[in-house]
């Protein structure tokens, strides 16, 4: 029987789980409302992080080009 703390660790650590472990995890999440909420919160947090990081990165094509040219000038000429 998995504890809620173990469930949190298994959910977050992204380790490969045996079929038995996966089943235990799934059963726990079906029966435990706090853990089900926790899982949703983690998913929401990660979605938000992804959005922000990708947005921050999206406008740099020009800058990246500059860096490439600078590096190539030093090492490929």
């Amino acid at each position: 029987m998995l504890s809620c703390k173990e469930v949190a660790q298994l959910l977050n650590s992204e380790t490969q789980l045996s079929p038995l472990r996966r089943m235990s995890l799934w059963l726990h999440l079906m029966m435990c409302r706090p853990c089900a909420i926790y899982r949703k919160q983690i998913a929401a947090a990660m979605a938000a992080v992804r959005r922000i990081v990708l947005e921050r990165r999206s406008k740099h094509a020009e800058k990246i080009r500059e860096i490439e040219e600078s590096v190539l000038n030093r090492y490929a000429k």
Partner: protein
Amino acid sequence: MSEAARSPNLSSPEFLSRLRQREASAIEVLVRTYTGQLFRAALGLGFDESTADEIVQTTWSAFFKSVPDFEGRSHVRTYLFGILYNKASEQRRDEKRTTPTDEAAALADRNFNAAGMWLQPPANPEDFAVAAQTKEIIEACLEDLTLKQRTALVLKTIDGHATEEICKIMNVTVTNLGVLLHRAKGALRECIERRSKGDCDEC
């Protein structure tokens, strides 16, 4: 497809020998393939544009200095990201910023009693969802992660690098990586939840 999954041929022995001989066309392929990935990784780790620029340039310098000794046992991308991570760590140290105390991760652990059950179950999902939509809150909570936690998070969950590769880049075991991911995500959630309740000093 994640960035990590592209570019299969750049670790062939033939390509590596062209690199060691400083063949300009090989260098160009390499630099154009990975500069963007390296730069975006540095941004993902929280550095501003000009610092990320510096970090990427010193990464390339270090790479070209050491390429004669690079045996190609790991993929050249792994090697590059490993250097980047080291440079990022050095940069963080030089910045002398207040090191994140890892407090949120520790607080996250204290949510459970000795039997591993929730002491205070997660709060209202709607309030949390609103806080998670607030850019300033997410950014502030990201800043609170240690560099190790943030690197694990960005490399794994955003850029989709394979576990084995991240372990090589960061020089950690698979178990360590799992712990880092757990602490990073737990800390983020904890931070967001506290701010959604107005439950912190900086709110």
